[in-house]
């Protein structure tokens, strides 16, 4: 077909009434309102149903992502349709949005960075909803991973919002990523103790603790000769659900067992020696009632 014919056909196409006329047309407003008031609850409800279905059949994380994508997509379609009913033309609007977007982009770099970081987080999935993560000094359970931020609930029940950009740039520890964890406890014993005996006692403590896993086996590793003690590292594996309870019970059981076995957990020791050319150290001998009884030098 000739190009001029196409242009003529486009020129003869019926044009929509001007924007001013449509804005003054009450039926256009009614149609737009109808779209908004019916469309938004519909999209909201639909996204919730789909989210629930995905959560049931997959994971909470995927359900949240699918639900939000569906809601934002539906909301966009409703807004564009409502504007079209009022006579707004999408082409010029998009052009204006492009120019406006550049201006807004400069003004809202942080927000845009958060949104893009949010997409990376959802794609990479270093953690999912309900995981426990540690970001900097904050540890908590992930409530949601949103476009701008990740929301956490700390163990003392505070709500923490961390911008996605910070999470992407920071070292994040997902505490609940793997099903089993190792609890490491540093144990110092007196130099007079036999390390083999101490090792046997520690392994027996782990064996008697119902929260400790038989396999992977608990370990006792020599760490070094400390200032006042021989230092050992005692590592016990448990399921991630039992980690907190094991951390609470195991040190108490070690202490009790050491007391039973007569194994000393020493305090820091200092041996003070006087040089040959210093004078004698003064010594005060005090009776049980606190009165000085004698002085020696």
């Amino acid at each position, binding site marked *: 077909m000739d190009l001029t014919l196409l242009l003529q056909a486009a020129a003869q196409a019926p044009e929509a009434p001007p924007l001013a006329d449509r804005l003054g047309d009450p039926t256009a407003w009614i149609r737009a309102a109808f779209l908004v008031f019916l469309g938004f609850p519909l999209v909201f409800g639909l996204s919730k149903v789909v989210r629930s279905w995905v959560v049931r059949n997959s994971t909470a994380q995927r359900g949240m992502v699918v639900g939000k994508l569906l809601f934002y997509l539906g909301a966009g379609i409703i807004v564009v349709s409502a504007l079209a009913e009022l006579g707004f033309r999408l082409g010029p609007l998009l052009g204006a949005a492009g120019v406006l977007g550049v201006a807004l982009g400069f003004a809202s770099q942080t927000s845009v960075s958060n949104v893009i970081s949010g997409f990376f987080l959802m794609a990479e999935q270093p953690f999912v909803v309900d995981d426990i993560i540690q970001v900097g000094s904050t540890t908590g359970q992930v409530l949601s991973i949103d476009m701008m931020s990740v929301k956490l609930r700390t163990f003392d029940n505070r709500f923490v919002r961390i911008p996605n950009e910070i999470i992407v740039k920071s070292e994040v520890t997902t505490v609940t990523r793997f*099903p*089993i964890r190792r609890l490491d406890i540093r144990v110092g014993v007196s130099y007079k103790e036999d390390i083999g005996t101490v090792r046997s006692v520690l392994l027996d403590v782990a064996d008697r603790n119902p929260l400790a896993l*038989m396999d992977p086996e608990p370990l006792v590793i020599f760490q070094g000769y400390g200032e006042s003690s021989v230092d050992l590292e005692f590592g016990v594996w448990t399921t991630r659900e039992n980690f907190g309870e094991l951390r609470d019970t195991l040190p108490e059981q070690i202490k009790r067992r050491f007391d039973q076995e007569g194994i000393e957990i020493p305090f820091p020791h200092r041996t003070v020696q006087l040089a040959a050319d210093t004078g004698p150290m003064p010594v005060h001998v005090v009776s049980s009632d606190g009165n000085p009884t004698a002085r020696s030098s």
Partner: protein
Amino acid sequence: VRSSGGSRSPWGAHDLRGADGLDLEIGPLKLRLEERAGEVWLARSDSQGAAPAKGTRWATTDDWDGRVALTPAFPDRPVVVEPEGAFWLVRGARARIYVRVPLWVHLEALGQERTSLVSVPTVTGSDTWWGTYEEGELCYWFATSARRSVEDSLFQEHLAMCPVQLENRSADSLPIERIALRVGYLSLYSQNGRIWADETTVRYQGEAEGTQLDVTGQPPPEAPGADLLVPARLKTTRGLRALTFSRLRAVQGWI
């Protein structure tokens, strides 16, 4: 299995109404069952000579006729055991081992319908992990060892004898150090007061090919004509594959 009334088996139905409670010993587990004001009371202790320490009670429906039923059941997780001594299964070899698994007691209230109340272990197993550090499953560990032969003295009333046929179809010798027994796929059978499980055949086909499990669904040849006590909790699928031999190796690093 002993009850306070004599040598009567604890398995089956017991009438609690009009009786002064019911005391049962199933291996190291001691149970006391009572009916009080239409409720089922249960106290249990798993240490010899100790008074029942843990008590639980259930308010029942009007349908309850005063009887309860005790049935044996396998633990609710796979069981990991060691052979008497670790051995190698050379290429193409077969070995038959017998694993004694401590049973659980499943308690139900009887009436027009059976109402499940609780399952309690006769022996409390330790937790152990089977798999890798990234994924796997939580299992029970029991001090019982897998044996190469069966003797009369091995049978106890709270233990189920599980015959396992091992086959090494890989190109390499296979070390048998620990075995995970997936008891959820096994049924329980009774013969002359002895409790058996159906035979499991474990075919190791190599590290990449994995292990294939087959459960016969019938009493083992050692117990011909045994009666079915409890059917398997899980249905076996054809070509069931599961990690049976591998285990976690030495650990890792210390910081």
